[in-house]
């Protein structure tokens, strides 16, 4: 296995992790809600895009935009009607959001639910934006993976600009840093949490549209994506931006390297092994600040 291959696919993989986790991290950072429905929204957005294209014969771009919008709306609804009553009770938040996740995923598993009559075969595949591969120094990379890299970078830059230069973005950061103080300065905590959930869900949708063309859409993806998002955020330190990105790269490369060395079966073992190892030495993640704050008795 040559180094270049690991380097390129590792980067792609890392950015996939980052795309998956960034929404979850944003939601947790702003509202302290662990959104266990993240994975289900991801899959739902994928299914919706597929359905819009194949059932409703929609334009690709339109389908993508529409399903991202719907994903964002679902995030908003989840917060407005369920999570808003459970703020500050982490166990209840986890249970309720996971229940939502089960409802969406197991609902999707049933065939014949509104709009999904087209599902008969076992595989639902989204086509990539552009078919084909490209040769980079002897390594073949398909265009979709390049698009993922580009979009990943755009998303990170966009979020950075959004949180540093717009009023809403700054309010989000204010709430993330100190909820009480921000509320005193007139930032509406509930509204911000709602916005964060809807942005987070939109990001999940975006990730789905970008990543799903690499494989096929299946309900199990929802659980996997949730576990990956949790893994990245836990390792990076919940709610830490830089940590999320760093952890994506750590996990992305450790996974690709282990696949290269031991074969694909071991990638998940190595993944969770890495998680446990890192948490053993840094119980609050690579960049987490939670512990230190709590230690100030």
């Amino acid at each position, binding site marked *: 296995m040559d180094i270049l291959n690991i380097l390129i696919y590792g980067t792609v993989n890392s950015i996939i992790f980052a795309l998956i986790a960034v929404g979850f991290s944003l939601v947790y950072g702003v509202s302290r809600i662990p959104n266990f429905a993240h994975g289900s929204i991801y899959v739902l957005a994928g299914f919706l895009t597929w359905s819009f294209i194949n059932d409703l014969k929609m334009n690709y771009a339109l389908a993508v935009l529409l399903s991202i919008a719907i994903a964002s709306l679902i995030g908003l609804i989840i917060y407005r009607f369920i999570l808003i009553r459970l703020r500050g009770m982490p166990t209840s938040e986890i249970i309720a959001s996971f229940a939502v996740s089960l409802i969406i995923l197991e609902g999707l598993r049933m065939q014949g639910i509104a709009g999904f009559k087209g599902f008969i075969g076992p595989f639902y595949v989204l086509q990539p934006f552009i078919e084909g591969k490209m040769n980079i120094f002897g390594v073949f990379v398909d265009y979709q993976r390049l698009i993922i890299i580009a979009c990943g970078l755009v998303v990170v830059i966009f979020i950075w600009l959004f949180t540093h230069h717009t009023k809403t973005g700054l309010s989000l950061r204010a709430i993330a840093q100190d909820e009480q103080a921000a509320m005193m300065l007139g930032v509406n905590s509930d509204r911000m949490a709602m916005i964060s959930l809807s942005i987070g869900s939109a990001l999940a949708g975006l990730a789905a549209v970008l990543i799903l063309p690499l494989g096929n859409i299946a309900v199990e993806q929802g659980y996997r994506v949730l576990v990956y998002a949790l893994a990245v955020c836990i390792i990076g330190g919940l709610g830490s931006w830089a940590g999320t990105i760093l952890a994506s790269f750590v996990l992305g490369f450790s996974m690709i390297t282990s696949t290269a060395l031991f074969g694909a079966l071991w990638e998940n073992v190595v993944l969770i092994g890495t998680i446990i190892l890192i948490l053993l030495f840094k119980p609050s993640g690579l960049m987490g600040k939670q512990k*230190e704050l709590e*230690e*100030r*008795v």
Partner: protein
Amino acid sequence: MEKEPILQINGLSKAFGGVQAVLDVDFTLFKGEVIGIIGPNGAGKTTLVNLITGFVKPDAGSILFKGKNIKGFQPHKIANLGLVRTFQVMRPYHSLAAFKNLIVPLNSPRVRRTSGGKLGDRDSVAIDILEEIGFERDARVPYKTAGSLPLGYLKRLELARCIALRPEVILCDEVFSGLSMSEIASMIPLLEKLQMEGITIMMIEHRLRELFRLADRVVVINFGKKIAEGIPKEVMEREEVKAAYLGTGKRK
């Protein structure tokens, strides 16, 4: 008369991020005395307690308890050696009855050891301690859940949990704050009694008048540094202490 040092602190430092919370502080506690730690808000007094009792790891310096370096020990190890603390923000076990709160320290290795394995009925020991510390006025109070007790009782409970451990040194983190004058007045004899029993007490306090009744010596801390040490009256006369409390008086 030769005084025996029980707790020696040398060059203790701790920084949180860029903020130097405690810098190069050293002082010594002698057996049986009451020492007061004073200083303006945010001077690093509570951090000092956290450092000594192991809740926060020091960056540098040494903490000698009875000649043994306890720096880097886990908090429960330190408590088992007989160096115990109260918390500034009270931390009762709110779902347990007040006297059941004391079952926790009564089960610690230290108490098991010192009582030779025989403690008898722990509940009755717990209630005895509570009575001793001023729960005697209302017979029902020890049976109420700690979460429903008023502030004055919580402060006492905090102290009672320390006493239950049969300590040698108690670090009191603002036991008087938030109490009324009469409540403080009833706490003072309690602390005096502890001192009579040979327990060394380090008090962090903002209520200087009450502190000075008790303290043999005071240490003044500002911005994490020790700026003065000595007999209470003398220390308060010093310029740097006045400056720390009142500002320098120089205006530009």
